[in-house]
């Protein structure tokens, strides 16, 4: 008679949580993309065997505590300033892998100058940009990436471009800069997209070794809580509406 002890053996292992994610329970809402994105980044770091050489920068926003979940050396930046920290680290330790992990408010509003100039200088680090079109941590206010007519706690009647301006497609802007080497937009709400996104993460870590410029990955993600939608409705809206404004795919790939 087989018991579970006979089955749970290394040779029978088909899937496990990467040990580069800590035991700490994630602080994210159920259904949020952050957990998946954390996992695929740490899986790539594990697969490449570069844990000792990776330093991450956490932002201010929902992922402010990213350093609690990733078992690597990390620094927590002031709101929007992650790219400045990463610039210093990549210049001082050119043989390490430096990445920032930032949300849309952090990267595309308060940190626009730092982000654009780091990418324009072609700093050799990776930016992981999570875009859910909303300020999640502070309760769902309008973000620079909030799309027209989208309801948030500060656009309760929908974003009105006359009043609030237009959504900022910062990744398209980043792709125009001479300093960027690899720019792509991914998502993680289906298994197929997770696999593609992980491939993009791997690309970024491989490309950054070449020291040819900044690598930038946008992950378009759902925010069920901030969007005030049920998980399945949120994913449906993401597919049918949000991704129309932010179409997935590569914006700049090395020749």
């Amino acid at each position: 008679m087989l018991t579970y002890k006979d089955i749970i053996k290394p040779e029978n292992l088909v899937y496990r949580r990467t040990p580069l994610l800590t035991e700490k329970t994630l602080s994210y809402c159920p259904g949020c993309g952050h957990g998946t994105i954390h996992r695929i980044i740490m899986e790539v770091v594990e697969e490449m065997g570069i844990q000792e050489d990776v330093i991450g920068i956490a932002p201010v926003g929902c992922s402010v505590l990213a350093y609690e979940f990733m078992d690597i050396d990390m620094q927590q930046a002031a709101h929007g300033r992650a790219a400045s920290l990463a610039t210093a680290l990549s210049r001082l330790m050119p043989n390490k892998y430096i990445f920032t992990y930032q949300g849309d408010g952090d990267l595309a509003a308060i940190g626009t100058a730092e982000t654009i100039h780091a990418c324009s200088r072609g700093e050799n680090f990776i930016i992981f940009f999570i875009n859910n079109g909303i300020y999640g941590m502070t309760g769902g206010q309008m973000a620079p990436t909030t799309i027209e007519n989208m309801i948030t706690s500060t656009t309760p009647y929908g974003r009105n471009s006359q009043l609030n301006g237009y959504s900022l497609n910062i990744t398209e802007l980043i792709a125009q800069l001479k300093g960027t080497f690899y720019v792509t937009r991914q998502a993680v709400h289906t298994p197929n997209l997770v696999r593609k996104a992980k491939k993009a993460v791997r690309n970024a870590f491989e490309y950054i070794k070449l020291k040819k410029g900044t690598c930038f990955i946008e992950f378009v993600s759902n925010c069920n809580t901030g969007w005030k939608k049920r998980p399945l409705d949120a994913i449906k809206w993401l597919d049918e509406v949000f991704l129309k404004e932010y179409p997935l795919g590569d914006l700049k790939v090395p020749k």
Partner: protein
Amino acid sequence: MKEIRLMKGNEAFAEALIRAGTDAYFGYPITPQNEVLEYLTEVEPHKRTGMIVLQVESEISAINMCYGGAGAGFKVATSSSSPGISLMMEGISYMAGAELPALILNVSRGGPGLGTIQPSQSDYFQAVKGGGHGDYKLFVIAPASVQEMADFVPIAFDVAFKYRTPTMILSDGIIGQMMEKVVLFDQMPRKTLEQIEKDYPWATTGKKNYRQRNIITSLDLDPIRQEKHVLKLQEKYKKIEENELRYEEIETDDAEFILVAYGSSARICLKVVKLARKEGLKVGLLRLITLFPFPYKKLEELSKKVAFFLVTELSTGQMVEDVILAVKNNAPVYFYGRTGGAIYTPNEILDFLKSKL
């Protein structure tokens, strides 16, 4: 033989950065401290020591680059002038909270606002009383000569690393722009990554398999733990007050009237002492070198034997508040100041002093 050069204060600071073994300097142009970045880009320190020099998009970015570099245990510095230092205050507060060592030079000018590009000492409150948000203090040291613009660099770095705290050299447009003879200290080596990892086990240089991951942050959402952290910072500031106080007494032994000043004002007051002594007036000078720590005890001690104090500042009166606090009504404290970039002459101060006799 030490190297002797004729330099501007800003250039002496820049050369001292290289010689102190600084790993990186990040800066943004602003008058009257542009010579720092210009000197550093001209002499190409990366060829001498490997030091990184980068002109960045804003003072905000410069201070946050210092945060990043310091978080990995590197010796980093930035410089600016008053309006730019205001922009850096956010980053300085974060560095105090995250306990990161760094050196910030303020070549101050008149304010508020864009104010003027002429020298001023109106950033005393900002430098000494916090400046940014939260319960923190900066070690602040004020040079009164071009020589000290160089000599205070290693001192400020030593304090920064000894206590894991940002430190400030509070200079002004006079000291930054004037040229004087400087005796330069010898080149100190930069630390290798291995030395940094050994000396600063907290540095985020990549998680090694022999240790837990290192985290640099100023965040703790638990109030009891955050309180403990803030109280730990206060213990550190208390130690700095105990160990790092510096001042200079000039002819205070027999003085009936004591001038209290720092930086360029102290330099002007040196002349006041000479002029007054020529006239038979027993005037001395307490020259503050560190502004935090502040010589409360020394002032209290002096207050018991003098007729009055005269505080001079190129401001409408900021440091004078701390002098009054120290003197505790034991003696009158007068104040003479000019502001907005205007500078007093020694005779102007002497006339004011005589008007109080």
